[in-house]
């Protein structure tokens, strides 16, 4: 019963935090998740951030799903970027210290694809965040309003199903 309740709560989390910032942050975090290969400790960090911060989880997963597909094509780019970064003599001392430190090697930062994807994600995250914020705003002003004014939406709103959904929304808060 406890597990079911937690699962329901998790489902609920998917639809929460629908403000522009939370949605855009979700998309930006999805960018990191999509690009960074699974199996590194970075992923644990992403999951903690996703659950513990007010970020839209649905947006994060949507962004992750789309960008994961893109990442297969970008792997050679990540490999080259990662190789260049990991070969930098100026960062050599830092990398050696990190590699010899406890826990840090589990991030697999020493892998060219992981490092390359991380660097590319960091470079793209801020522009991606603002681009998504702009896109959400435009979507809400242009697309949603246009749909609301269609006769189909009005007809749907008059149905019993929609009323039931509204009651659920109220109940769920």
């Amino acid at each position: 019963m406890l597990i079911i309740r937690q699962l329901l709560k998790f489902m609920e989390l998917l639809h929460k935090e629908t403000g522009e910032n939370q949605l855009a942050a979700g998309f930006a975090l999805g960018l990191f998740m999509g690009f960074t290969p699974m199996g590194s400790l970075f992923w644990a960090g992403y999951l903690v951030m996703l659950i513990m911060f007010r970020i839209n989880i649905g947006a994060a997963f949507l962004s992750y799903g789309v960008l994961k597909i893109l990442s297969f094509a970008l792997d050679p780019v990540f490999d080259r970027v990662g190789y260049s970064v990991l070969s930098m003599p100026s960062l050599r001392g830092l990398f050696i210290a990190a590699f010899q430190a406890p826990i840090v090697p589990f991030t697999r930062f020493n892998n060219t694809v992981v490092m390359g994807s991380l660097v590319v994600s960091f470079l793209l995250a801020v522009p991606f965040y603002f681009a998504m914020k702009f896109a959400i705003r435009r979507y809400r002003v242009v697309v949603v309003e246009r749909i609301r004014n269609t006769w189909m939406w009005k007809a749907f709103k008059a149905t019993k199903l929609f009323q039931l959904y509204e009651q659920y929304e109220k109940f769920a808060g």
Partner: protein
Amino acid sequence: MSNTKNSPVNFKTPIRWGGFVPLVIITTATCLYFWLFFDRHLKYGLEVGATAANGARVDIGSLKTRLLHGEILVSKVEVGNPKEPMKNRVEVESMRFKLRVPPLIKMKVVIEDSSILGIKYGTARTYSAAIPVAPKAASQFSKQVMNGFEKVLKEKVGEGEVERVGSLLEGKNLTGQAIQIGEDSNSMKNIRAAQSLIESSSKDLDAKMKALPDEKAISGIKAKIDAIGAAKVNNVEDAGRLLNDLKSVETDVSSMTNKATDAGNSVTQVTNNVTQSVNNVEKAIDEDVAYVKKKLQIPNLNLKDLTTPLLGPKLGQLLEQSLYYVELARKYMPPKKKGEKEPIAVQERKKGRDFEFGQRATYPGFLLEKAVITSALSEDPTQGDAKGEIFGVNSNPSVYGKPTTAALTANFPRAKVAGARVNINIDHVTEVAKESGSFQVDSFPVEEWVLSEGSPFFLKVLKAAGRGGLEMRFQDDELSLEMKALLSQVNYEMKTDNAKLEGILKRALANFSSFNLTARVTGKEGKIDMFMASDLGERLGNAIRQEVQAQLELANQEIRKKVTAEVAEKRKALDQALDGFKKNTLGPLDSKIKGVNDLKGQLQAQIDRINKEKDNVIKGKAQQELDKVKQGIKLPKF
């Protein structure tokens, strides 16, 4: 009723405290996974990896990790045999690995000690170890070495040569077909080129010959010299006048000489070119003969020794396998990254490359410090008596600072394997990767060893007792592989559709119950050299050679005769053209050069004569003057 106006502002912190419980659940699930399923998945992962490396299934009976105690226990490891899938190559009863715990938190696996107990050889499997074999992705180094080897093998053996020898033995008349080399053949092309050169050269030389002085001009000059020669020198003034006349003639003769020399040089050069061009026709005929031989599939095979054609491909397989293991070692134990001061290794991964940022006096990412292999004879007939040690298997040899070594001795009496000794040394400590290994066996059984599976004959060693060894040395991109084997008490199986060949081979193999084999491959990437010798190959080669040599020679002669006949008419015309060219140019040129040289000689003779007579006149005058002076002087009397 809700009172929105008076409700407090719903301020949300950036932290979602509600997420704490799912996070705890996820963490607990992760711990549960490690407790319940990790061993199973590690076992599966090891099986998959080892199967891929082995080329046949590798099964692990059980695997238990006790990470807090630093222990991994593995039992019943079956390494399937890719060639005989219902048998295991090796079966290990149990393995125990003692890990250092503190490095684990740094993602380093350091096995300080391990023991491998109970080694069995050739045990039966309950199910097949065969797997769909994916083509191995060879590296550039491997590809270049194998390309170099195949090139050498092709040079030494040729393609389908042995099969064509079979056709010869079947008595096929290989030269029976019509031989037409056509207008595009090398011979015809060269004949046309030589003819055209003769034509163009004749035109050029004609112009030069016309510029040479004709008979009339030479006679004119000669007459002038003769006229001067008839004149007598009475005094110095006469001599000066005559010499001046000769000087003007000398200018004309010099000009003639220069023209003749120039024409002579041109003719020599052109004649050389034409002769060379005609000689090229001979070479072209040789090429056409070779082309026709190839077209008619006349073998070029060196039948002195059939070892390379028979066993060359097997040596290639052995080389490919050796390279596979060398590459595996270089991939998982990479040498130090080139140009780096620090001990940094880069390892190719399925996704990207892993940098191992090593530091002196630390552990590499993976290190097996020592493994002791022990196996004693038991009631189990497949279990052998083996002893061995492996030191320093690691993921960053430049950090570890010592080469990886392995030494093993084994005897499997029931399997009739005695005195097996393996020594391996993998030195990847520096930037230059060095690997060496030797594998020696004093006695081992040979069964069902196919020597030749293609046409014209199938030859297999059904049973034999073997002894031999293999030595390998790799250093960066250079390699050396040497194999020596002696097979005794050999029983052969031989099949062929060719009755004549069957008789030859049966006679050759009768009472030939032991043979040796020596093979060597050395070189560097694409420049590979190979050598193979075996008294079996020599014996078979000699037997076949006696039979086919006469036929081969006959075929060669026949082809040369036919090709020569094809070009004979044009060749004759070419020879005539060459003779005509020589006659038309060399003959007249020689006579003109001779005429000019004669003039030159006559001119010089006249110059010498006049100078001599001038000297005589001067001397006579001087004597007269001296006599006069003598008469005019009266000496006093005493």
